């Protein structure tokens, strides 16, 4: 039997009416772009892996985001806002609006990451999405943000494709990439290990692994190295013994591990267990190289990283004013130094806020214009430029080595060389980055 009452009818109509009114409110002509903030606050969406193989990086990214929000709203000691060359940020939120945030879990999976980003944009009204450990995720979310008309400030993503064939006008990357790692590492490897080397590559089987491997292979071959083999390993692999065992009799004298996070910890552990580091091949010491290093994973691999070369975007032991200010405020708040993932996400948040201030709007096209070609300093990497043509930051790259005698549990990497920007720079149409177009900024709405 139907229980249709007058009161019920009014309630239902009111609910339906409110529901119908919602989209009109969001897309009303007053707002010329998606999720234009109307009240006294602005919402940012932090989309990081809170589970999956990169969850620890994700946790550190989130800490950095929270710290950045605190600083933007005038709390704490201001961190890198004090050393940043642009002085638009005053601790009064962004454009006078208090900064609020929502978080999502990417689970290190592209579909989950897209779903959480979509929810933050559509339900929570996020005007900017940032985050992602894993290039597969970053590329997927960058594409989504382009369609939705919000800015994407990429977190830890190192694939050439993020600002190469998959670049988007609404997406910006501060982190370095596979090409830069190869270009910075190869000369150091040549100097230490010589020209006549045979390299065997184990490579994570997804966008980051492929471009990282391609980059380091090209860079080392240019120095005279020979590539014996490249074996792709699925991201979900945990026991690398069956991939490492064939290296022993391959004639290779260098093993390049194009792995990150948990993958790298496990593959390196296997390689060390199989005695690779104690081997002599072709009359030379067998060597292992890890092109992309992070302190978190170096710590996870324990003793095994000692003496192994790699590259990194930033390290807490740097002594410039920006790095010192960031380590101080992060360390004071959390009790340990920040990782490179934390650094890049913190910087990205400040860069976004600063671009809003300078352009006087949250409109993605205005923000994008303010970021394109923007030159800045004081953020821990020396003079840096957001190249307008591909939205990639160009700056110095750190070549690091697993420290032989660490003085603390955080002191696992030492900076061997700071490779100048000029050595890692490439043309926009470089073959490794070719294909795809930046397109036009999309304000959505």
């Amino acid at each position: 039997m139907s229980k249709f009452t007058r009161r019920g009818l009014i309630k239902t109509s009111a609910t339906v009416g409110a529901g119908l009114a919602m989209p009109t409110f969001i897309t009303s002509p007053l707002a010329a772009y998606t999720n234009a903030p109307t009240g006294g606050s602005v919402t940012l969406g932090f989309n990081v892996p809170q589970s999956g193989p990169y969850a620890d990086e994700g946790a550190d990214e989130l800490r950095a985001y929270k710290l950045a929000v605190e600083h933007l709203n005038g709390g704490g000691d201001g961190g890198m806002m004090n050393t940043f060359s642009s002085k638009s940020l005053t601790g009064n939120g962004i454009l006078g609006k208090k900064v609020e945030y929502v978080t999502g879990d990417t689970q290190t999976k592209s579909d989950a990451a897209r779903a959480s980003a979509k929810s933050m944009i559509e339900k929570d009204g996020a005007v900017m999405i940032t985050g992602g450990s894993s290039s597969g995720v970053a590329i997927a979310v960058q594409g989504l943000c382009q369609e939705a008309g919000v800015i994407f400030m990429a977190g830890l993503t190192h694939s050439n494709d993020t600002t190469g064939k998959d670049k988007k006008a609404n997406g910006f990357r501060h982190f370095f990439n596979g090409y830069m790692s190869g270009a910075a590492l190869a000369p150091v490897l040549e100097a230490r290990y010589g020209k006549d080397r045979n390299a065997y590559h184990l490579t994570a089987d997804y966008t980051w692994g492929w471009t990282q491997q391609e980059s380091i292979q090209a860079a080392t071959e240019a120095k005279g190295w020979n590539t014996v083999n490249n074996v792709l390993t699925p991201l979900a692999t945990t026991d690398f013994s069956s991939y490492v065992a064939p290296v022993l009799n391959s004639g290779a004298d260098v093993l390049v591990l194009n792995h990150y996070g948990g993958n790298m910890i496990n593959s390196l552990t296997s390689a060390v267990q199989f005695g690779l580091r104690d081997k002599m091949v072709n009359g030379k010491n067998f060597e292992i190289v890890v092109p992309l290093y992070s302190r978190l994973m170096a710590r996870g691999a324990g003793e095994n990283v000692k003496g192994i070369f790699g590259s990194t975007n930033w390290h807490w032991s740097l002594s410039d004013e920006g790095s010192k200010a960031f380590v101080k405020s992060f360390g004071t708040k959390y009790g340990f130094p920040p990782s490179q993932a934390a650094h890049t996400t913190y910087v990205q948040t400040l860069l976004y806020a600063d671009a809003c201030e300078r352009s006087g709007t949250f409109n993605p096209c205005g923000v994008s214009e303010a970021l394109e070609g923007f030159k800045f300093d004081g953020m821990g990497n020396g003079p840096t430029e957001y190249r307008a043509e591909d939205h990639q930051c160009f700056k110095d790259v750190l070549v690091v080595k697993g420290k032989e005698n660490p003085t603390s549990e955080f002191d696992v990497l030492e900076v061997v060389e700071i490779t100048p920007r000029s050595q890692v720079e490439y043309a926009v149409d470089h073959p490794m980055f070719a294909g795809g177009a930046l397109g036009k900024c999309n304000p959505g709405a």
Partner: protein
Amino acid sequence: MDAILLQILNGLDKGSAYALIALGLTLIFGTLGVVNFAHGALFMLGAFCAVSLQKLVAVSKITIDPSQVDFLGNPLKVKTPYVIEWFGPKIGNAIIDWNVPLAIIIAIPVMLLIGYVMERGLIKHFYKRPHADQILVTFGLAIVIQELVKANFGANPIPTPAPDQFVGSFNVGALIGLDASYPYWRLIYFAFSALIISSVFAFLRFTTFGMVVRAGMADRETVGLLGINIDRRFTIMFGIAAAVAGLAGVMYTPINSPNYHMGMDFLVLSFVVVVVGGMGSLPGAVSAGFLLGILESFASMNEVKGFFEMLYLPSIDQIIIYLVAIIVLLTRPRGLMGKAGVMEE
């Protein structure tokens, strides 16, 4: 030849872990009729017994050393583990170094208890429910356990090294005139698994308790009618199965640094092992474990992969286990050693 020997050893090693987990799964299925999807979580909990012990022995007394500074420039807090403080550096360091073998002693009672609580507290209520319900509840439980471990220990793998004496590798090939070095600890893992597997078989074969359990597996009702409390014995078997999984986990920690997800990685493969071996067959589970381990290792050889790539079958190492499972199930639907009547009612 060297490469083949290495892959056989690798296969035996992988097979050991599969066999140990599949053995426990089969024990639980054979006795209680429950498909336990939380078994991988028990393997992981075993590994985290070793991690917990490692953390426990590292608990340190903090003294402030004003002559050194930390990364923020504050006076350095120097940590001295209490075990070194109490027993002196020699014994203290030995305890820290031998953490993984010591964890075995702790893992046995802990895992027995966890198994007991799990069976009495949750799984007992699902005996009369369909298998689908059992799978859902045990899978859910596995996720809960995983998340708890993640919340406490983080998501990254935690290095848990073997004692210093067993670090490095041993030239197994030299024994038969080849050159093939294999890590010590992996050899130990294989020997340890063989020991555990034979102990479980001996326990079921030669003890009265084991005989009653086997009788109960064959005909639970009749054994019950004879006045034997078969349920209690089955609960204990659940505990033993949990302990076997736990020990497999403890010993696995130096091979691959444990993380919260390691149980799930093994669980699916172990189920395939059980199915290939034949549901309810203990020898089937063990032999299928080793067989699939070896096949998987061979499939990951570059030569084998290259051959299958020519046949348009890339990444054969990823699918070999499932391919074999399909072939076995098509030709022998009950698995290699499965008996009639199991899961066929």
